[in-house]
């Protein structure tokens, strides 16, 4: 391989004005026509590196060589014009505009939309498997489809290098597969893809080369073929880790603690009945849009349109979150930042949110927060740290800690490990087991079927808002679960 790399970084550094070093000398080579995986724990410097490459923030030191020339982009437009397209994890789309107009946001020219631009957008959409209607309003689309719009938007400028920051984090199986196909196709066309992910399996399956960041340094840079998942995970964590492993737990056989009867919500959820006993972890498997979150919200009383009954310990609970909380039901929602925590409040204040009573007891709340920080291994300077300043995994632990009161008997977890690094993920899964051992009934929704297989006692499979089957995690494997959840007819095959 004598060919010069498309992108080469030498000793790239970034120090924030307050003295925090985010990057301490990163070396990285990306070749044209290759898929390059970038991994690292939360806070390792991945996002900073991406922002530097995208021209959103300037580097403090080191060289960027792009197509053989030293470059230093001063704004995102320059990087984009140079042939680098970046798709950020938190998708910056305009929710009030149509898909087409979002894809054309960066296009110059006089007319708002012309025929040629529309055709170009349609071609790009087709190459992605045509997952959306060009004239749909982005705000109406589910989050997975928005991700596809963002990918399409990135492709509109015909980039030589496409940077994707966890593009699959919010996607379900078939949509992920589309992203994978797209990435392979782009690499086949001679473009390079820098692919950031928390999922080791997709990194191993998809990439040609891998770079692992830890504490702002590149600690591993190698061809993927020479590595396996364990080696990559060890590089991320800094020491050897054990892969998720299923443990047989004692099956609880008590009475139903949570009993859901004919719970339904128009357009979202078909009449659904099931029950869970105390100490049981029930997994809910389903593709994106299968009604997983809708089911949890209906149980929690957060869906005003929901009908049917939910019984906790034999008592019917009212259709109001406050009533559910009073009955001991707790929900950890899917979108932490938008639904889970209040970023301007401290850890102690967030944890104390569901508490009843009249007066605030600062000392007790402070002690409770310190206890939670110790107990859940939350990495934070103190109980007065703002939750908005914590990394995803630690913020998620705060959201869970909020509900660890003696009152809570039923825990509803909606994608508790999404976008969280492997260490924190393991912590959270261990915590879920511990809580179930204490006698809580746990409903766990996860797109990580591997997680469901490792921690749950049984798995309900949801499809199109209805429970279509139940699986025993001891006997089913990931492929089998995917098959159950995606059904015999895959919806993506309908597209031409």
């Amino acid at each position, binding site marked *: 391989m004598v060919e010069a790399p498309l992108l080469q970084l030498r000793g790239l550094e970034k120090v924030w004005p307050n003295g925090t070093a985010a990057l301490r000398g990163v070396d990285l080579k990306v070749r044209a026509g290759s898929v390059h995986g970038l991994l690292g724990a939360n806070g390792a410097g991945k996002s900073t590196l991406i922002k530097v490459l995208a021209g959103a923030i300037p580097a403090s030191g080191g060289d960027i060589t792009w197509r053989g020339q030293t470059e230093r982009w001063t704004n995102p437009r320059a990087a984009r014009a140079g042939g680098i397209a970046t798709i950020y994890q938190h998708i910056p789309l305009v929710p009030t505009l149509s898909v087409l107009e979002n894809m054309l946001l960066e296009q110059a020219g006089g007319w708002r939309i012309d025929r040629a631009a529309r055709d170009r957008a349609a071609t790009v959409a087709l190459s992605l498997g045509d997952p959306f209607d060009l004239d749909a309003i982005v705000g109406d689309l589910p989050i997975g489809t928005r991700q596809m719009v963002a990918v399409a938007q990135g492709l509109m400028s015909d980039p030589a290098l496409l940077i994707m920051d966890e593009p699959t984090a919010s996607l379900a199986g078939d949509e992920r597969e589309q992203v994978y196909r797209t990435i392979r196709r782009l690499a086949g066309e001679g473009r390079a893809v820098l692919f950031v992910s928390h999922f080791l399996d997709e990194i191993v399956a998809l990439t040609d080369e891998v770079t692992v960041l830890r504490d702002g340094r590149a600690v591993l840079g190698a061809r993927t073929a020479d590595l396996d998942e364990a080696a990559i995970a060890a590089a991320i964590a800094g020491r050897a880790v*054990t892969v998720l492993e299923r443990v047989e737990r004692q099956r609880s056989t008590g009475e139903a603690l949570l009993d859901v009867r004919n719970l339904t919500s128009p357009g979202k959820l078909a009449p659904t009945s099931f029950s869970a006993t105390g100490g049981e972890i029930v997994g809910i498997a389903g593709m994106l849009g299968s009604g997983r979150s809708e089911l949890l919200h209906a149980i929690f009383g957060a869906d005003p349109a929901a009908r049917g009954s939910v019984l906790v310990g034999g008592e019917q609970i009212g259709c*109001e979150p406050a009533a559910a*909380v009073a009955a001991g039901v707790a929900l950890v*929602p899917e979108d932490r930042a938008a639904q889970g925590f*209040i970023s301007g409040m401290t850890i102690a204040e967030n944890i104390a949110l569901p508490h009843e009573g009249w*007066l605030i007891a600062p*000392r007790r709340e402070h002690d409770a927060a310190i206890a939670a920080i110790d107990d859940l291994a939350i*990495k934070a300077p103190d109980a007065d740290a703002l939750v908005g300043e914590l990394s995803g995994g630690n913020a998620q632990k705060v959201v869970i800690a909020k509900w660890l009161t003696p009152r809570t008997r039923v825990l509803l977890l909606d994608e508790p490990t999404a976008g969280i690094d492997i260490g924190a993920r393991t912590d959270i899964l261990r915590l879920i087991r511990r809580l179930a051992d204490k006698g809580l009934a746990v409903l766990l929704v996860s797109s990580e079927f591997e997680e469901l297989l490792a921690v749950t006692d049984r798995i309900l499979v949801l499809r199109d808002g209805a429970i279509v089957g139940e699986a025993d995690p001891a006997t089913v494997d990931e492929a089998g679960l995917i098959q159950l959840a995606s059904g015999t007819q895959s919806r993506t095959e309908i597209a031409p």
Partner: protein
Amino acid sequence: MTRSIDWRRTFGLREAGVYYALLILLALLAAIAHSRGLPNYLSPQNLGNIVYQASLVGIMGVAMTVMLITGAFDLSVASVAALAAAVLVGLAPSIGFPLAAGAAIITAIAVGIFNGAVVQFVGINAFIVTLGTLTAVRGLVLVLTDGRSLMVERPDVLQQMLAFESTRVPIFWAALLFAATLLALAAWKRRPLDALAGIVVGALALLAGRDFTVAAPVVYLALFTLAVWAVLRFTVIGRRIYAVGGNAEAARLSGINVHAYKLGAFVLSSAAAGFAGVLFGCRLGAINPTALQGTELTVIAAAILGGTSLLGGAGSVLKTVIGALLLFTLTNGFNVLDLGASYQGLIEGAVVIAAAAIYTVGGDRRRARRATVDTAPQAPAVAEAG
């Protein structure tokens, strides 16, 4: 709480700027007065006067701050206050002052419930709804007064109303007691900021002297501010108010009744406006149908000067009151020192924009304190828990 104090933040422009602005303005006006050979500008009488002039806006501003903290907005307060004053002045001669005042406040609360219900249950933006009630309620005042000034002509009722509004209240011992309470609290809980507040209150009381009195509305403002401040600071209700404004969805999914809190803010805002209207009606014993027009903007300006975010989730009622004092010190200074009333609006507007600029540019110092503790995680085996 054993919470360490970030001194740079506490005394930075973002947190304490409105206090500095008030002090600088007072010093400036005192210097001008002195150089022109006018009587002492900082006399207790004049300062008491400023607080009296600011009291109506202050009362509405405190409630407006709660409103803004929950993330909503109320443009209708001045019209509601005028309506309350009209109801009071219209009914007082026939049913007596106390009943008329009650009717005025109930009328105001009804408008608040209407505002809140339309905003919360129909889902229209608060700005639009209250812009509508601003106009409609003012129209109602015109209808009720038939476009003319109303006056209370029964002397006994007028006497009661004037007594409610203009009684001079000696506050020396109350202020000293309050200062002592603050100091005791500060010593007990080791809160140096409370000690500072206690010293300031105590010193002002001693400087003003034992015979110092203030008009009743100043006392109403102080009590109302103290009550709302205490609720926000010490009660679960207070925290939930901040939570509702900070992230309504997270609050809802924590089992907080978001509708009740938002509706409650509208009711509080209108009730405070109603009370301010009662005070206004009592002040003159009369109501002019265009009274208090435009005051809603002064109320919002006071809250913004006090650093309340229009985005919700942040704000302090104490600083809103200081913001109101700042605005009325400007007005008072222009009048007393005869600085040319034409410049007043220009200066006031510039001050509001400058304050907002300081809060935006100098703000977020706390965010800059990045959490740097998040390094590579340890990854223990999931299996060992089983």
